[in-house]
């Protein structure tokens, strides 16, 4: 089936998630869609699968214009999508999951469909037990089932959204072999990924998206340099490696915090042997695409999630297996990027936040807290009143409130994308404030999807890829290009 997309646009308010995207998907081929987070890949695929309505644009199937806006309609046209989060039923068996959505008779013919399922699995080299419950299956197996199910529905175009995330290398090989076989049988495969190696291994054709627009189209053989250039655009070149705004820490030989061989299995994200030494006063920037493991790593570092393996020590004191409270007592503080959901109490006022954090006695001493509150509002220039609820604050002011709740004696600050949703001015303010209050006194570990931010702020950069630390270098020893390559999974072994 040949699909032609013409000027597909999708606007969320002012944000242009997809801006005039046009390209053609050929039958008998694997077509890759490459781009960083927020490039508009997922939105485009959801439009194609009928899950999200498009704002404007046309879709042609074999030259004929089609209009649809539900997944069911898309399936009838032969377009099926394998979602990043499996759209299946954990409490039902493999066979039952397979049956749901198929056109079957009112009575379930178990035998007939078990045979059908097993046959399809065999053709693709999958091993699935029809009577097993889905909740006992791995993500890779659930994916296999979904592919088999979509094929049974007569899908001609198969869309896969980041299929290699969270599955084992072995399962990845099985999946890739199956996809190649399907393409040979005449299906069109659309592979969405931010992993260069997946794309170069599989695809006959690649469309690169950046900021909602098509920035390049390539045919196999693919050149990774060109793809990277297209993916990040001129951005990497514009980054000036001017050194951190934070003062360089003195050369002390003993690290403040040591993280050794952390392993953790958390749904689709697996951390493998992550180690990191944090020296006093050091600012470490974490780069990496979404769901590469940095979110989980930060939470382990903050004591919110316990790792399956590995140790964490602060000043030689072992914190492994301790709860978050002990981490706090050792002056380790965490600010999540979902400020309102994880960091603040949406309905509580500023005053109540200060009471909650700084008040030690049983009775609420509103008067002294009120004074503190006004002081903090002035110090941090929070645009709000003591009785303003946190949810009424703008993103920047929520961040200021969170920062104001950090105690002065903090030794390690863990900040998850601290400037998310902030304008340039507010972002700059956040870093200046942190430098003023904590420069040399505390270490900071922060994650950010913006490479320029990491290069402006950090002393050291580490890159997460697929649950592993792929690169760990002093900013002065690396280049934006090298970090950009590592983010996409490419490192030169010197």
């Amino acid at each position: 089936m040949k699909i032609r997309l013409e000027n597909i646009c999708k606007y969320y308010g002012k944000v242009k998630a997809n801006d005039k995207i046009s390209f053609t998907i050929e039958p008998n081929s694997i077509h890759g869609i490459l781009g960083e987070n927020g490039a508009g890949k997922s939105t485009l695929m959801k439009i194609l699968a009928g899950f999200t309505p498009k704002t404007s644009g046309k879709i042609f199937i074999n030259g004929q214009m089609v209009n649809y806006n539900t997944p069911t309609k898309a399936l009838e046209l032969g377009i099926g999508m394998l979602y990043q989060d499996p759209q299946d039923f954990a409490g039902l068996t493999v066979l039952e999951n397979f049956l749901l959505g198929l056109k079957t008779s009112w009575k379930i013919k178990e035998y007939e469909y078990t045979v059908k399922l097993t046959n399809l699995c065999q053709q693709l080299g999958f091993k699935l037990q029809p009577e097993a419950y889905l909740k006992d299956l791995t993500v890779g197996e659930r994916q296999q089932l979904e592919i088999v199910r979509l094929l049974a529905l007569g899908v001609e175009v198969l869309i896969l959204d980041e299929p290699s995330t969270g599955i084992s290398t072995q399962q990845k090989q099985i999946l890739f072999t199956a996809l190649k076989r399907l393409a040979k049988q005449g299906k069109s495969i659309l592979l969405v990924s931010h992993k260069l190696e997946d794309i170069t291994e599989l695809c006959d054709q690649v469309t690169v998206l950046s900021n909602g627009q098509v920035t390049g189209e390539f045919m196999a053989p693919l050149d990774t340099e060109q793809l990277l250039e297209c993916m990040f655009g001129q951005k990497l070149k514009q980054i000036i490696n001017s050194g951190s705004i934070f003062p360089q820490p003195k050369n002390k030989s003993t690290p403040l915090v040591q993280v050794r061989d952390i392993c953790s299995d958390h749904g689709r994200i697996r951390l493998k042997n992550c180690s990191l030494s944090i020296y006093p006063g050091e600012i470490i920037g974490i780069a990496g695409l979404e769901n590469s493991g940095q979110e989980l790593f930060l939470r382990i570092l903050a004591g919110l999630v316990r790792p399956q393996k590995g140790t964490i020590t602060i000043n030689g004191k072992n914190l492994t297996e301790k709860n978050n409270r002990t981490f706090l007592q050792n002056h380790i503080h965490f600010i999540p990027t979902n400020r309102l959901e994880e960091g603040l109490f949406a309905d509580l006022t500023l005053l109540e936040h200060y009471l909650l954090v700084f008040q030690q006695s049983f009775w609420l001493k509103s008067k002294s807290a009120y004074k503190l509150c006004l002081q903090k509002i002035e110090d941090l220039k929070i645009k709000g009143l003591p009785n303003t609820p946190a949810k009424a604050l703008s993103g920047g002011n929520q961040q200021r409130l969170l920062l104001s709740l950090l105690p002065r004696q903090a030794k390690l600050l863990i900040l998850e994308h601290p400037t998310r949703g902030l304008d340039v001015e507010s972002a700059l303010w956040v870093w200046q404030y942190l430098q003023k209050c904590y420069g040399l006194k505390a270490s900071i570990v922060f994650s950010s999807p913006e490479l320029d931010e990491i290069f402006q702020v950090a002393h050291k950069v580490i890159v997460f890829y697929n649950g592993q630390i792929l690169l760990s270098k002093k900013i002065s020893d690396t280049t934006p290009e090298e970090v950009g390559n590592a983010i996409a999974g490419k490192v030169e072994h010197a």
Partner: protein
Amino acid sequence: MDTTILLASVISSAAPIIFATLGETFTERAGIVNLSLDGTILLSAMVGFVVAYNTHNLILAFLASGLTGAAVASIVAIGSLFYGLSQVAIGFVLTLTCRDLAYFLGNAYTRLPGPQVKHLAIPLLKDLPFIGPVFFNHNLVVYLSYVLIIFSWYYFYKTKAGLILRACGENPVAAYSRGINVKLHQLAYTLWGGFWVGLSGASYSLLFKPGWGRPQGAEGIGWIALAIVIFGGWDPLKVALGTYFFAFLQLVGILLQSSYPQIPSQVFQVAPFPLMILMLVIMHISSQKTAKLDPQPQHLSPIQRLLRFLKTTPPAALGSNVHTKEF
């Protein structure tokens, strides 16, 4: 007491509870919690009695009760599915409202003699040794409870409609993406479940605790029915088993009461309830333990196999209003 008579009594006194528990199983498996059972049973018991008293038509009375149950359930379904309200909150309020409404509207019919369901032994089958007197020497209501158990099991696990029903409660968003009209199914099964809860009410006022009054005698049954659904792990056969177990406990209480007159009678009346809770706790703990066991059943001891059989997991999306946000 003779075992045959004991078992026959268990079977018969469980019948109205079976209607309520299996009705609720349908509702909850579709992902909706109808907490109003206790009130619904009383209201439909009153409606059933009033209709029977005035028309002398028992079928009409049962039908009216069922429709009453469905009407109450529709409030839960519509409130939650179309207005995004909390199912728990609506359920609680409806429980209290329906109970008071039943007492208020039924006041004029208090302690009046009314028609009752007749005893009807099934010819031939009733003469079978042991099985005959235990299962087939009852009335149509009890026989209907057998039909409901078997029907529910078959419907849940052997039909496509049943599979869709379970899918809706498990993951409504995924069900939607497979072309299932989730809201419509949930609405239908909430009404259907409510209908059977209504029949449960009629079975009390027209058979097991005949007549209308305050108290009627069915008070508290709705709550225990809700607990039994959990106890039975939302599986029709296990739910039925749990219902019989509860009926058995109640009966044992009555028997022990006559053997130990020195213990206050309230102890025996209340005992089944904490016993059910105790069973739930034991099952929960054991299900955590069996989860770690070897998945091959042939390596397990009979007790481990029993525990595995009793292991329960609720429908994943039970009671959530996820659909109103997603669609």
